[in-house]
């Protein structure tokens, strides 16, 4: 592809476009930021404010809310929902919905647990999948379970695209079918126990304190490097760059957050007379890897660009030559696989899988997390980070209510209201964005 490179401006005066490519001054950047906020582009501000309010409310009611023990507890509690919500974000970006994620997560959990089980007894009584005397190793069982969910996602995607059936209906059918399959897989026992040490460790293990600090430092450094590399490439191409002050500020902010998190996690949170317990939870690292990886996929790859395009204007995407069918199928595969990963994390936390797996509030909480975090239900708008933020809101509210011993009824009402408030704030900001011409 060759691009027309001669620059001529008719009037001879510099165009606004070229002028805007010069580095922004700090004043311009800040001015631009406040202008965007005033016209409705609030970004993560509502969520952060909301979290602060939640923290204040619950801490005043129960002093155990903001403690190291509860903090680490929170991370473990939100891990499953966050993971599933990442998949939900992709589906919502297309303007679709996947109602089967709850039970697909259970399918992965049951499949993995059954494979890991030590068969025992007479080999002739072993089920067809028991090909290892000591049960499957975790490094085969987990990929197998996830491969199963990928196939499920593929089936959903194929039915939706080939037969043009709305995703709502297909995933609803999936919800029923996979629920049945899970029950059939669990069988008469009612519960399948998880005994594999590694898998149990996924949701329950903690990193040694030193390694935790090393990881925190490495992450901040990597972020700093990536910011400077980007600054450099843009400058060399003559494009506009963010002011240095802001870049330093961002790096500092990340350093502070990472520092505080790691410090709190590394405090001794064991019981006063019991064994000391300290260290960042391993599952937190898993979440971080997933969030960073999928954010990259969504914003920096061609695939991610196509997901946003199909969600924004499917006709435009089609005319641009994008294979809309293929994108939709891939997204439903992502949804099911992330659901599977969430199911594995949840099974690890409970150390078992029972007939209630995948049910309850899992589906609604996962979708609510993505929506509260800022992903639009109508497609084309949203970020992977919204999975984390929304799950944080939902989980901290549940956590807080649990500490206050609220009844189930009360919990439902409050969670519903939180979701409603979040969506209303988003709707108001969208209206204001439309009025000021941003969206």
């Amino acid at each position, binding site marked *: 592809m060759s691009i027309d490179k001669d620059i001529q401006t008719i009037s001879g005066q510099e165009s606004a476009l*070229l002028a805007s*490519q010069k580095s922004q001054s700090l004043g311009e950047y800040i001015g631009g930021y406040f202008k965007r906020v005033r016209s409705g582009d609030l970004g993560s501000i509502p969520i952060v404010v909301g979290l602060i309010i939640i923290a204040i409310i619950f801490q005043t009611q129960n002093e155990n809310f903001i403690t190291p023990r509860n903090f680490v507890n929170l991370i473990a509690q939100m891990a499953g929902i966050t993971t599933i919500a990442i998949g939900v974000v992709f589906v919502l970006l297309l303007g679709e919905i996947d109602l089967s994620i709850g039970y697909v997560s259970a399918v992965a959990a049951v499949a993995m647990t059954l494979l890991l089980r030590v068969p025992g007894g007479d080999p002739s009584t072993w089920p067809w999948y028991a090909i290892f005397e000591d049960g499957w190793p975790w490094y085969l069982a987990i990929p197998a379970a996830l491969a199963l969910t990928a196939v499920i996602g593929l089936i959903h995607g194929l039915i939706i695209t080939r037969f043009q059936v709305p995703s709502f209906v297909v995933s609803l059918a999936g919800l029923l079918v996979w629920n049945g399959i899970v029950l059939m897989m669990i069988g008469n026992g009612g519960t399948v126990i998880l005994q594999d040490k590694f898998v149990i460790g996924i949701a329950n293990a903690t990193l040694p304190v030193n390694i935790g600090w090393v990881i925190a430092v490495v992450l901040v450094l990597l972020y700093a490097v990536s910011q400077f590399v980007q600054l450099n490439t843009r400058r060399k191409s*003559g494009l506009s760059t963010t002011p240095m002050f802001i870049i330093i500020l961002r790096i500092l902010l990340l350093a502070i957050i990472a520092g505080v998190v790691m410090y709190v996690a590394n405090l001794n949170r064991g019981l006063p007379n019991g064994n000391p317990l300290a260290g960042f939870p391993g599952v937190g690292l898993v979440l971080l890897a997933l969030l960073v990886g999928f954010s990259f996929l969504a914003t920096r790859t061609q695939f991610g660009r196509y997901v*946003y*395009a199909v969600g924004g204007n499917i006709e435009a995407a089609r005319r641009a030559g994008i294979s809309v069918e293929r994108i939709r199928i891939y997204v439903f595969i992502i949804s099911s696989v992330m659901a599977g990963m969430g199911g594995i994390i949840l099974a690890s936390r409970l150390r078992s899988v029972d007939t209630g797996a995948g049910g309850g509030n899992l589906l609604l909480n996962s979708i609510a997390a993505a929506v509260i975090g800022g992903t639009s239900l109508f497609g084309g708008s949203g970020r992977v980070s919204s999975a984390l933020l929304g799950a944080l809101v939902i989980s901290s509210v549940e956590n807080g209510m649990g500490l206050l011993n609220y009844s189930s009824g009360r919990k439902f009402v409050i969670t519903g209201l939180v979701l409603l408030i979040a969506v209303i704030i988003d709707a108001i900001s969208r209206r204001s964005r439309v009025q000021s011409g941003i969206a």
Partner: protein
Amino acid sequence: MSLLELKGVSKSFGAVQALYKVDFSATEGEVMALVGDNGAGKSTLIKGIAGIYPFDEGEIFFDGKKVTINNARDSAALDIEIVYQDLALADNLDVVANMFLGREQLQGRWQLDETSMEHAAVQTLDSLSVNTLRSVRQPVASLSGGQRQAIAVAKAVMWNSKLVILDEPTAALGVAQTRQVLDLVKTLASKGLAVVLISHNLHDIFEVADRITVLRLGQKVDEFATSEVTQQDVVHSITAGSMEQVPGMVDA
């Protein structure tokens, strides 16, 4: 010599004969206006060139060589770019993303090369004197109608298209924006592209077009050089141009 030449193309949808033995040509550096009343077959002709509804019969010559256009990919491979009436822009993406949609530049196998795409977009928009945009990173939803039209046209220039077809580009635009788009059309032709302009607005046509093809009821009834006719002549041709053939007619 014409860049694009259609000879005797026809297209029917069931019992409806949308196009019947139409000849059409477009030349590099020239703006050819395609006019006709509603239902005359303009859209069908364009969609046939775009590969969306391939023609039933007739021949297509591009750059002197005979070609077939059976799908959108064949059309794109000939460096034909169509700017649809609804512009086909994704509102949630920014200007750069839209200009490169479907044809992104990559770093390695997967990663988008944002820097060089942004650079190319800025260069192209500047070379077309599109100078009212504040930033190429603003979402397309925030642009005015004329700016959106300009982006859609800039795409054609950036990809070095040889033939650009514009479907009613000024239909929904105000006076200043129409001016902007017409200037763009003239710039495209001056850069050596062949431009086909569908429009109902004779005023616009007489300002930018070099030649005019008139369709009526699926057939080509006239072709003029703009300098040799008046608007009245064109109107007459659109509404009452004589048709030499009727589908099914047997030569005596």
